[in-house]
């Protein structure tokens, strides 16, 4: 900046810092601060845009999951399908009806277990319970489980997430 400032003028300068500085000096320091501030804002914006977690929006083909043959599912039995971050249960209720329910507890995202005797999904973390329609029976879960559309085509079970 101002290279010409001699060390001998130092006392004067410190006195001047207390009083009103000259307007050109104030303008220049304001300008450089504004420049650095804008530069910092821009850098923060760029880094923020870079750091934003990329969204892996599932494509239509990935949203339809082939579960398996209907005849392999026994009545009253549930199968856990480990599908990415949205694992789900497929439960065969009787000869024709199959339901698919999320296996992730709505409370703190624990993975639910299947209780065959009571025909319920139970959470090992805080003992939350859901019935096979996804409604909360007891425990801390705040919401019902999401359920997914099941279709059976040519004896094969498909679930649309």
């Amino acid at each position: 900046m101002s290279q010409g400032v001699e060390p001998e003028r130092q006392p004067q300068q410190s006195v001047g810092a207390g009083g009103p500085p000259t307007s050109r000096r104030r303008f220049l320091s304001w300008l450089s601060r504004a420049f650095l501030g804008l530069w910092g804002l821009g850098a923060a914006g760029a880094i923020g845009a870079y750091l934003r977690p990329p969204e892996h929006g599932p494509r239509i083909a990935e949203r339809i999951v082939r579960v398996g043959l209907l005849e392999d599912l026994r009545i009253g039995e549930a199968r856990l399908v480990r599908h990415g971050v949205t694992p789900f249960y497929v439960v065969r209720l009787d000869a024709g009806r199959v339901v698919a329910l999320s296996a992730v507890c709505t409370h703190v995202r624990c993975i639910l277990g299947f209780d065959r005797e009571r025909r319920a999904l139970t959470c090992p973390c805080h003992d939350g319970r859901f019935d096979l329609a996804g409604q909360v029976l007891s425990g801390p879960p705040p919401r019902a489980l999401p359920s997914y559309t099941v279709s059976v085509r040519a004896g094969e079970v498909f679930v649309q997430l």
Partner: protein
Amino acid sequence: MSDAPRVGGTPGGGDASGGGAGPGPRGDWVAWLERRLNLTETFSFLTHFGLVWTPVDTSRPVREVVREVASQPVPAYARWPRVLGLLAAILFGLEVVTGVLLAYYYRPTPEAAFESTRTIVRDLPFGWFIHQLHGWGAWLLVIVVAARLLRLFWDGLYRAPREVLWWSAVAMAWLVLQSDFTGRLLTWDSRSYWAAVRGMEVVFALPVVGPLLAFLLGGRVINDDVLIRFYALHMLVLPAGFAFFLYLTFATLRRVGLSPEAPMHRGAATTLRDHLYSMLILSVLLFGVLTTLAVLAPFRFQAAADPYSTPTGVRPPWYMLAPYAVIENGPGPSWLLGLLLLAVAFAVLLLPLWAPRAAGGRVLGRMRLWGLFALAAWTALSVLGAFMERR
């Protein structure tokens, strides 16, 4: 509950009485903080990193100390001659920041390395810019560290009592070259992969160093084991070493200085405050240069590496062209030539022992002559290596 009003009331009363040094309306947070921790002590820790030469009295308020330090005279010889070391420090900081940003998305496996780098470069917002900043920053860092080595040599700053300065400078140059070499492999594109293969073949052929390096680097074949070790070296070990030698440089500078031939009081050009402002402007200019290079001359990104097909025109990095020319053209087996080069490189470290302190200007002049001769030989060999590549 009973405490709350009392605690809330203290800052208001304390600002009037405890501020002492007359804090302005904007700087109240300094006074607020100073009543809670000794800011002068924190500042005195910062003074370890060069620039401030006077001892700091930690019992005084921080604003007074900072004002006093900022108006210290800075002699002319301490300004631009020292700029190379400062540039190295700034560039190292830039490499750390951009490297951390890249590490958020990079995956060090042969299957994912190229894919993840391409995701950074192609898909993420500003990813290409961060990648190019990292690459060009490394390129400039190699130049700056080499230039700094030349400057220290030219001014004879390897003689006692500055041996530590010289050894740190050599170590930093070596670490920068290693970082550059390990970093090139990480993108796992075909050029970088095959350049690493060729470079490693030469190194592994050395008698004792070769097997040792193969042990340390995870094998003689460049595969996933080697890649993850390169990654760990590149992002953990080598930067830690660089930071250590950077601190060592600052520490020894505080004790022995860089050029005591010129006395402190003569040629006091400016104050420390203005000096810092010039360095700030220099950093902004450096960023401008890097941005220009990143936009106008981006590093090309080739196809993914295929271990079963070697592309044509794989060339060593520019700083390896001279050793490359010697090993390809020199008489004798390559391991012997490699050992010879290694011995020459290590001889640089012993320079302080050959130039005793008592030696006057005539010895310094002779050393300069030798240095010029070595530089000319190196340049000629590099040109030879470059032309060998063209053929």
